[in-house]
């Protein structure tokens, strides 16, 4: 039995890291380079709308820049800000999101087309994954997506206001619920 490497993710700053030797601008740029992809990926998977995900991710970093000082846990801080913005955006535009929800399942995936049958199969898989995600509670869904976007247990705990010791339990429960729902909709995964 072997342990797999952790999924690829950028450098992670540990507490107490940034001292007066670096400027905020440098810290911000390093954080942006390291963490924007993960934040976008999380929001994209959560919403199914890459434009909205990009907008919210950019706005979260804009607010971090305006803050002028790095928080203790920048990655988790950005997730909290992004989640709050997403919640506010959904309240304001509930009708628009209902239309988007109908469109999401028909959006093409990022991979190039390999034929109409493969495209159809992929679209079905996207729908099944999306439906399985929607069947999980909101917090469990967020924990699952954060983890698989490269966030650590500590960052997930801070972002979702969980005890760090309960993140593993949350992920196990979320994964079980997801798999159960996915099997019902799509059959057993390979």
């Amino acid at each position, binding site marked *: 039995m072997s342990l797999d490497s952790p999924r690829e993710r950028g450098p992670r700053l540990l507490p107490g890291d940034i*001292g007066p030797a670096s400027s905020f601008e440098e810290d911000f740029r*390093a954080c942006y380079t390291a963490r924007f992809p993960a934040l976008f990926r999380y929001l994209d998977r959560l919403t199914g709308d890459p434009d909205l995900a990009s907008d919210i991710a950019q706005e979260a970093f804009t607010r971090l820049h305006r803050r002028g000082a790095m928080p203790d846990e920048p990655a988790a801080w950005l997730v909290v800000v992004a989640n709050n913005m997403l919640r506010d955006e959904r309240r304001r535009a509930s009708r628009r999101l209902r239309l988007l929800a109908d469109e999401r399942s028909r959006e093409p995936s990022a991979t190039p087309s390999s034929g109409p049958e493969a495209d159809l199969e992929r679209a079905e898989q996207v729908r099944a994954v999306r439906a399985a995600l929607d069947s999980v509670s909101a917090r469990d869904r967020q924990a699952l997506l954060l983890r698989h976007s490269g966030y650590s247990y500590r960052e997930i705990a801070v972002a979702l206001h969980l005890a760090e010791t309960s993140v593993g339990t949350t992920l196990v429960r979320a994964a079980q619920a997801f798999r159960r729902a996915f099997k019902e909709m799509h059959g057993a995964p390979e």
Partner: protein
Amino acid sequence: MHPSDATLLALVQGELGRDEVAELWTHLTQCDTCAASAEKLRRGDEEMGRLLGVLDHPLPSLEPPMTTPRPRPLRRAAIAAGAALFAAGVAAASVPGTPVYRWIRERIEAQHSELPRPARAPTSTAPAQAAGGIELPAPNALIVQFTAAQPGGVLTVAVGSRPVVSLRAFGGAVAYRVGDGRLVVDNSHPADHYALEIPAGLGRLTITAGQQVIYRSDTASTVRSAAPDTISLAPGSPR
């Protein structure tokens, strides 16, 4: 005592500390049931990652928001609100020389200024940091570059079980920059000592302080079997 699924998941996801990993490994080599559970969780975690990946769209270009602000739907409302506040402020305090007038003028100049913010100058009253550090996925070859030689500075090196490189600084305030296979440690405000953890599979390790190479190994076996445990960062102390 058999570990829970949550603990085993944390193990396969690389979230446990060195001591916990060692203890669990010992148990897993003796308990087929738990070993099978861990393997099942590992496969499930891998499959989950693959399934969630079908939802992905291409990553937009990495463009820091402060360089090219483009009005987008979310920002249009914010810009409109800001413009309304600004207009109200100007109308309320348009008399030159008043404190409010000066405050508004400063905000306008700050928004339109194209000068970069000056770096914060280090201060002697800056508090010493607790154990802070950086962790990153391990490359095949790693250069750890301290920007200055440090008399009395000590770097301890240990081979860990996780496939990451971790550097911690104790008692100082250092900053880090990460490049391709390179970790730059700005120790102009030096820490008392540093601890570097490297994975056993690291192919090549080079450590420099200032302009001097203080440690170099060219093979994975050398790093694994003969990683130095303590390196001096003082000038003129190569290994």
